């Protein structure tokens, strides 16, 4: 049995320990905000936070998250998360929207690490998140907007 904390709730999983965290979250915990896009950590649609780090859940066996603190799009909170969601709304970032949970999880992790990210910082943190609608220009602007809002609050 694997024990971990999911969005603040103690959680256990008794199935195949090889099961990627993505499918535990989706199929067993029924949290559907985290998406499957490639299954090989190439697209970032499955990004969640594992002990605060943006992590591709599609290749991470659940056995590797014993005792870890997992946060998904459903559980993300705090000033950076609020600022990112507000900027995403304000700039109408999503098109089809399927990648956006992963984009937001990566963006929040970036802003927690780097409060005033440069374009290079954004490239570095976000290049693992594919958006087939190519909403990249708005993603970049929204991250900068969120950073500016957080700076103004501080």
């Amino acid at each position: 049995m694997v024990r971990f904390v999911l969005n603040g709730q103690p959680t256990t999983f008794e199935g195949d320990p090889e099961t990627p965290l993505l499918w535990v979250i989706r199929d067993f915990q029924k949290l559907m905000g985290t998406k499957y896009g490639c299954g090989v950590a190439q697209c970032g649609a499955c990004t969640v936070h594992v002990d605060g780090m943006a992590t591709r859940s599609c290749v991470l066996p659940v056995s590797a998250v014993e005792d870890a603190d997992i946060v998904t799009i459903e559980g993300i909170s705090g000033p950076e998360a609020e600022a990112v969601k507000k900027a995403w709304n304000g700039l109408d970032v999503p098109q089809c929207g399927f990648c956006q949970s992963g984009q937001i999880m990566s963006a929040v992790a970036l802003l927690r690490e780097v409060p005033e990210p440069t374009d290079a910082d954004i490239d570095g943190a976000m290049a693992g998140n594919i958006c087939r609608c190519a909403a990249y220009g708005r993603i970049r602007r929204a991250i900068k907007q969120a950073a500016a809002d957080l700076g103004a609050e501080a």
Partner: protein
Amino acid sequence: MRWHRFRPTRRAVLAGMGLVVAVGAVAPLAYSAARKGMWAWRIRSTASPAAFVKIGTDDTVTVMNKHIEFGQGTSTGMATLVAEELDADWSQMRAAEAPTDDELYASLAFGVQATGGSSAMSVAYEQMRLVGAAARAMLVAAAAEEWGVSASEITVSNGIVRHVPSGRESRFGALADRAAEQDPPLWPRLKDPKNFVLIGRDLPKLDTREKSNGTATFTADLSTDDMLVAVVEHPDHFGATVASFDDTAARAVPGVVDVRPLPQGVAVYARDTFSALKGRAALKVEWDLSKAETRSSAEIEADFVRRLDGTGLEATSRGDPDKALGADGVRRLEAQILFPFLAHAPMETLDAVFLPNAGDGIDIYSGAQFPSMDQRTATELLGLGPDNVRLHTVIAGGSFGRRAQPNAAYITEATEAFKAIGASRPMKHMWTREDDIRGGYYRPMYLHRLRGAVDATGRIVAWDQAVVGQSIAGTSELDESSVEGASNLPYAIDNLRVVAHNVVLPVPVLWWRSVGHSHTGFAVETFVDELLELGGRDAVEGRLELLSGEPRLAAVLARAAEMAGWGGPLPEGRQRGVAAVKSFGTCVAQVAEVSRGEDGAPRVHKVWCAVDCGVAVNPNVIRQQMEGGLGYGLGAILYGEITLGEGGRVMQSNFHDYRVLRINEMPEVEVAIMPSSASPSGVGEPGVPPIGPAVANAWRRLTGQPVRRLPMVPGSVA
């Protein structure tokens, strides 16, 4: 049975409804009559959920979107048209996917319920405004009745119905039930466009919030307690079939429930996705390749080259191109350009959910672009009566053409899988990314040969173009989608010939965002650029000279050039290229600024884009589609390529080897929308075609090397 997740908005709407307005069947003929002012609309009030607009007693106005929303903005667009004529407040507007019903929801372009060809806004523009106008008239009539005043004294604005003389006012919800009892007007009056308050504004999209907090529900996200997950092991050659299989190891995987052969491959059913994938990986399948494509891309290319000399299908002809090409004193240019197969690779892979309902019917949930065709196909396969299968369209994680299959191939496989296990238990069928990349239905591979000539004065006097490739429609006749953009070349050239050579291959192909323009736009716009250079003409001025018959295309070209400061100084190591393409009735010009990147391949820094799509219903969405369209096209021309290796296997499998554009490769984009009062045309596809040739033209100026083969990867261009 319990749905873990369902769209609460839809449920709420269906539960508490007041006024419901539907516009009855309108054949394309009636629509064209309507356009001439003879409005042959049958408008009725009905309690049926099959309707276009529902005004809830809670003041919400829900527009049933008959065109699937997959990122292109139709839900916001349809709601805007209704809200404008209804004089609703934008904050009360909602949208939901319409049920499957050709009679109510046929596209006025196709005659069946369908989304495609960048047509939604253009063909629904009057229809959805009429719906809004009819609903408004019914609300006004209800208010007049309730207040005992004349309807002519009642005004509506921002979601408030008012009778100024008596000081009475009401929100829509309080009037909805009474409005539902009113006779709808036979001839709803539409606003004079100068009085528009919502059309033309940067309205926020209706689906942004749910797509920014993880609650937007796609087909992939639907599940029930006892649902099986089915994945299918597909052949790795196109046209191959199952010879034999051994499922011993697959069945031994905990969680795997069953394994069944299908016409498409071998299906593995499990209680959860990972068990299904693990079971599929454990299958041993022998494939029969006797009818399969076993040639490589290189062999297919050699065959395409040979076909250039055969007799083709004439798509257009004027003047005498042979004579003009052979005339004394002309300078000639010839080019062959090869375009690869391309996968659409939408973020959400193909999927469908099958749910046996309490009666003896089946509910299917899927991101269908042709829902009525998919529903009919599933009904026939399941051997059920026409009313026993209902297909519910679900918002989809992208498509780019992939979900629009005239042969319903995807829903056929999913339904076969459901049928093979008895059609009695809830089932989700999904493709993995590998299934998607290797699954065919690609943008076809094409070879273009272009020959042109300029006379002594530098004028282009001849254009002779041949296109070799598969017909998407599968016809042996001329397929317009192979030559569109070339056969109706916008440039005034006296001697013109365009010929198509249809090739039959076992590789299934499909329309890919911008269809024929995805390759003809590149061929035409790079070749004209080279001919203009040969004739000593500037790329912008030279095009404008040839576009006297295409004033809207000329105007976007001039606008993009002006935005970019065309002809002005450039940063060291950079060059610019331009292209202008009219597709789906919309004119788009783009200027791209390009340098050579560290890896030797093109790096695109900035794109200036001008678009004329008629009335700009929502400039915010139009800019978004231009940004995204050119990003989608850029990824394809820089990296996109599906190749068949020795023996015919697809060489790519996932995003590591089928590369797509990433954020660090996205240029800065500036978009200008031309002011226009012309009927709106679409924006989903037209942003795609110009980016490739604009980048290639810049690259030629930068390196001296024309681009003759896509994608522009090192080794091909660098």
